[in-house]
């Protein structure tokens, strides 16, 4: 058999899906029998897949996965009263008691009937917006201000729905290939990867051949692109102007379902005016200027340079701050690229050794970052000193929350006094500390999610022994405060790694906790910073 392992697994799952849905054809049945007989590992995978179906069919298995356990509901029978999951233990125990009581009071027949009561589906709970997935991604922005809840930034993926751009410029790349620059004020509604509703605003779209058919709908006119570049300006009253830079577009009156009667075609340098009443008239004059992709790029790069300079000047005052224990600004050393230069006041001892990791571009053009991908990637440090309180601050671009524990800064091993700053795969920031009275975990709410992936994010954690609390921050906002209840003791680092966990032999086997993403700034202060200081670091470093 010449198939890769992925291929047979995918095929097996397709066949299992058909089997489960009672739609396995005779041919498919023979194929599945052969697969099970000849492919090593296929029977195991089959058993696992069927077992998963069984679990998914259990009441509450899927809908009950929120953080609030459902209590006292008989149909929510969980099979394992002493489950290891802490969040559901109480609920499980209660359910179990309920059942046990019913059982005791029932005849055996009723007992069995009740045990097999299957949950009845509630149709009303079923929402229609199931395929709410991304249609475009934001690739440039300049001075954007947003009205309403949805605030798009570079790297944001855009789901179907409405956005309102108050001012500024934004560039969207639709998944089908169209690239659209929008100038605020604009009201947009994303429909799918090749359809955009523009209630008002000005946009310029470049539509490559593979995205042909990209449509923009305004209150009075529907524009279908036939592979081209065009601009469209929609005013508050629904009147609009269209200009074709290159190629060809079709215009239809809105609400006519692209009726051939209202169809008009325009080519290069031609244009049209659409009145508030919906009349489409050809017009040669280009009434407004449309910002192109390359103009936006120029604007954005000028802004980039300014922000970078601003950050550089702020960094100097940060380095001079006596509270800083270590600071790395992740700028590639021109002589030794395997050295992570420390910018804290003193000696060479604080420089880090880069193992694996690739230099890449950071928050701004012209600013470096280190990329951590491979399970072996890490930066080794030696941090001296003892601390009563600590503040961690880092700019990171998380590319995946793909390990149960994800290292940010971890001491090698985990001895008394050693802190472990890390992430959990459910989106929590976690400071674990080995105290004289044992391991204590201070964690945040589960805040990080798929929306944070691929975007520069500021993470901070303050361990404040004076006020006896640990506070976590994401992008300058507090996301969880926990009290410190242990007696005072000294925190220390010694041998430490960024983005990984160097485990001494006695902790073997090696646990994989490598960070997946990029880091472009890291500071550890030997003192607790206030909430407003954290907010300021965030604001200064914002892209």
């Amino acid at each position, binding site marked *: 058999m010449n198939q890769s392992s992925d291929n047979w697994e995918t095929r097996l*799952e397709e066949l299992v899906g058909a089997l*489960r849905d009672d739609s396995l054809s005779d041919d498919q049945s023979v194929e599945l029998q052969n697969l099970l007989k000849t492919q090593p590992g296929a029977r195991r995978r089959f058993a696992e897949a069927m077992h998963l179906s069984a679990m998914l069919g259990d009441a509450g298995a*899927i809908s009950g996965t929120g953080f609030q356990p459902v209590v006292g509901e008989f149909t929510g029978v969980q099979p*394992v009263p002493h489950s290891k999951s802490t969040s559901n233990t109480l609920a499980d125990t209660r359910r179990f008691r309920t059942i046990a009581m019913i059982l005791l009071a029932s005849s055996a027949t009723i007992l069995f009937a009740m045990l097999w009561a299957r*949950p009845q*589906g509630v149709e009303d709970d079923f929402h229609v917006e199931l395929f*709410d997935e991304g249609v475009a991604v934001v690739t440039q922005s300049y001075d954007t201000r947003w009205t309403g809840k949805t605030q798009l930034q570079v790297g944001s993926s855009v789901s179907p729905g409405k956005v309102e751009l108050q001012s500024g410029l934004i560039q969207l790349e639709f998944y089908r290939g169209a690239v659209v620059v929008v100038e605020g004020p604009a009201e947009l509604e994303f429909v799918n990867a090749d359809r955009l509703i523009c209630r008002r605003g000005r946009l310029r779209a470049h539509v490559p051949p593979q995205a042909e058919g990209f449509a923009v709908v305004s209150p009075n006119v529907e524009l279908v692109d036939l592979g081209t570049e065009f601009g469209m300006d929609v005013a508050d009253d629904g009147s609009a102007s269209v200009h074709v830079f290159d190629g060809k577009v079709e215009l239809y009156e809105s609400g006519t379902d692209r009726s051939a009667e209202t169809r008009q075609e325009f080519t290069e340098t031609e244009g049209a005016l659409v009145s508030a009443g919906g009349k489409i008239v050809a017009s040669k004059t280009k009434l407004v200027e449309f910002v192109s992709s390359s103009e936006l790029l120029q604007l954005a790069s000028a802004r980039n340079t300014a922000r970078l300079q601003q950050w550089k000047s702020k960094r100097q005052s940060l380095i001079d701050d006596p509270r800083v224990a270590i600071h790395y600004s992740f700028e590639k050393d021109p002589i030794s690229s395997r050295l992570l230069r420390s910018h804290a006041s003193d000696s060479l001892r604080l420089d880090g050794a880069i193992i694996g990791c690739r230099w890449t571009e950071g928050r701004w053009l012209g600013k470096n970052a280190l990329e951590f991908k491979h399970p072996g990637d890490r930066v080794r440090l030696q941090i001296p000193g003892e601390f009563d309180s600590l503040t961690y601050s880092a700019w990171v671009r998380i590319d995946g929350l793909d390990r149960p524990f994800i290292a940010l800064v971890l001491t090698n091993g985990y001895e008394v006094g050693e802190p472990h700053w890390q992430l959990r795969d459910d989106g929590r920031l976690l400071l674990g500390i080995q105290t004289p009275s044992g391991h204590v975990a201070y964690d945040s709410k589960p805040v990080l999610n798929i929306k944070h992936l691929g975007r520069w994010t500021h993470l901070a954690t303050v361990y404040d022994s004076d006020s006896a609390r640990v506070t976590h921050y994401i992008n300058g906002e507090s996301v969880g405060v926990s009290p410190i209840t242990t007696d005072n003791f000294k925190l220390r680092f010694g041998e430490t790694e960024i983005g990984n966990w160097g485990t001494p032999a006695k902790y073997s086997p090696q646990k994989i906790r490598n960070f997946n993403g990029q880091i472009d700034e890291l500071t550890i202060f030997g003192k607790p910073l206030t909430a407003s200081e954290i907010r300021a670091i965030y604001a200064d470093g914002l892209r």
Partner: protein
Amino acid sequence: MPPSTHDDEKVEQFSRLLVANQRRLYGFILTLVHDRAAADDILQDVSSLLWQKFDKFEPGTDFAAWGMAVSRLTILNWRRKQKKVPLPLDDQQFALLADEAVAVSCQHESRQVALRECLQKVDASGRELLASRFEMSRSVASIAEQLGRSRVAIYKRLNRIQSLLLDCINEKVQEEGVL
């Protein structure tokens, strides 16, 4: 078998064991029966059998293992009685698959805990799709119709989500073995 006060303790002991193990048994049965309705019926038959034979069960031994052994015979009989099953297996293939099913079912608790965690990785729309397919037992055709999507699209998405869940569960269960 009318339960007298004398039998109360026995009933309680049995129901405790059965409640703790019935989903594990159900998973085992479904792996070898492939049809949910039939698996429900067989689980019911097996439970009656287990109750009838409960006197022979030695407290402290593995109830699940005993339950799976009883299920195995019941399933084999059921399969032989059927005119046609969607996935015919000869005795040897059946035995090999049943062994795998035992191995997987033995990890039921870890797998269930892992599933809860792994479901957090599935987005809300994916979870709703799973819920309507599995918790509400709706057919792919009816989901496809309601959403105005093709059946193939729904199948593909379901398969993708389940494959992701399976990989995630396996990774977590393996990790637990290592930690």
